């Protein structure tokens, strides 16, 4: 029973991080038609900013602001430098451009900082565990679940009640029409990038809180999972991204917990096998909108 509850908490905290990353990918895809390969590097930037600020002895509230703000600004800069000039060039060009951004950033992290993982001194309480109703649960996992819940609640509010949020949702179906009603593309696109960067920053903080170090390829694994999550949920759909993220997190934890030791190295084979199975039946994802064609 205790193990089961712990695994559920693990699944929610891992899936929640995937979900935050997947939403960022979906939001950018909605307005820019771009699958941003460099999304993982936004997360890594958050990690290195955390490393620098912790090293400089900055108080934690400010560190958290920095972890969220720096990737958001980096995402806006990416849009400006690597995507806006190519906006009319079609999805393949944008895709390649984001691949180049990712490779260049990874190279910079390796040569300017270090190819090796850098340890980050986290507040001690993150390593603690508490007993909730007779079950021992790690504080870091609880923090993750709470932060994910607050962030998702904030996103629901943002997408429902703000004009920019509505624009982004509408753009996932028909961005040309969003432009035709007079929404400023040069405002909503950078805002979508900023949001995706901020979410990558939150994910970065939660990821590092459970691992304690940052390396040049920090973002690679979780963002790969987030790509799969958006495909499973339905590309461009934010609700689908959340569903896909939690589903992928749950599958990973489930196979991690149930596979016999001999098969454990092949965990991802099982996870991705199931994902392929889902996509075979629902090729456009679980929550692809009925009118999902982009005009």
């Amino acid at each position, binding site marked *: 029973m205790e193990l089961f509850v712990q695994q559920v908490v693990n699944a929610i905290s891992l899936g929640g991080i995937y979900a935050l990353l997947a939403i960022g990918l979906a939001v950018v895809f909605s307005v820019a038609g771009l699958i941003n390969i460099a999304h993982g590097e936004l997360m890594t930037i958050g990690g290195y900013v955390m490393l620098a600020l912790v090293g400089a002895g900055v108080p934690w509230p400010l560190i958290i602001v920095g972890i969220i703000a720096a990737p958001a600004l980096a995402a806006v800069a990416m849009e400006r430098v690597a995507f806006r000039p190519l906006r009319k060039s079609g999805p393949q060009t944008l895709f390649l451009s984001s691949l180049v951004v990712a490779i260049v950033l990874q190279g910079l992290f390796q040569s300017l900082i270090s190819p090796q993982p850098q340890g980050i001194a986290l507040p001690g309480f993150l390593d603690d565990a508490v007993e909730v109703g007779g079950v021992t649960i790690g504080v870091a996992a609880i923090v993750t679940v709470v932060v994910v819940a607050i962030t998702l609640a904030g996103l629901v509010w943002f997408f429902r009640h703000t*004009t920019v949020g509505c624009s982004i*949702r*509408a753009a996932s179906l028909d961005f040309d029409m969003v432009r035709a*009603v*007079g*929404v400023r*593309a040069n405002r909503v696109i950078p805002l979508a990038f900023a949001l995706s960067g901020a979410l990558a920053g939150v994910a970065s903080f939660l990821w590092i809180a459970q691992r304690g170090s940052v390396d040049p390829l920090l973002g690679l694994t979780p963002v790969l999972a987030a790509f799969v999550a958006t495909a499973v949920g339905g590309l461009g759909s934010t609700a689908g991204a959340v569903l896909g993220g939690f589903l992928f997190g749950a599958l990973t934890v489930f196979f991690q917990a149930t596979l016999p030791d001999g098969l454990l190295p092949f965990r991802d084979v099982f996870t991705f096998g199931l994902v392929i199975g889902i996509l075979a039946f629902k090729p456009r994802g679980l929550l692809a909108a009925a009118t999902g064609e982009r*005009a």
Partner: protein
Amino acid sequence: MTDQPLLSVSDLSVSYGPVQAVREASLEVRAGEIVALLGANGAGKSSTMWALVGMAPRTGGRIVLDGRDVTGAAPEDVVRAGIAIVPEGRRVFANLTVRDNIRLGGVARRAGDPHGPLQRDEVGDLFPLLAERWDQVAGGLSGGQQQQLAIARALAARPRLVLLDEPSLGLSPRLVGEVFELMAELRRRAITLLVVEQNVQRSLAIADRAYVLQGGRIVLSGDAAEVRDSEATEAAFLGGRTTTRTTTTTTVTG
């Protein structure tokens, strides 16, 4: 009111790569008019409409709205200047509620408009069903209701001129009648309309003036009655010989 037309388009050309969709088309719309833009499929009607809001690749010509040159302006600036489009196929935001569709329609309200955002009771005045379904998702509305919503979304921009692209396409005969009644109602509310319609007879019955496009060129223009009686209109729709003839325009600004 001055003699200056609300919309004045001169020598508009639109090209998609090597395909020239509109060739040096000139037209005028005066405040308070309903003007019909007619022609067979592929004659360049929709391309003209999209070029007016800055969303089709314009290769030449000039677009002036109420004395202000909006040639080459971005869509967001054209909408703010006072042109709103109701596109073919309605293209409501299916995943948003009626309220949020109208909210987005009002993002680019015309500068200097005194009325503020389009309110639910104002929408209900024209479209009672939309006000009733205010918080429902647009994708769940019927085709006729989606057409109403597409029009309400355009009105939310508080435009001077509304471009209606095939508003009756795909609707039942009864709903088609409602769409034409609505156009008359909008004119009573001092909203100027430029309408593209497949339903030639009905649009000529309601329009003040009409232009006929053929192969991207305007081959005929004039009073609705004159255009209706012209052989060139028939030729344009049957794809027959290209007769370029311009009847005199005698419409009084209403």
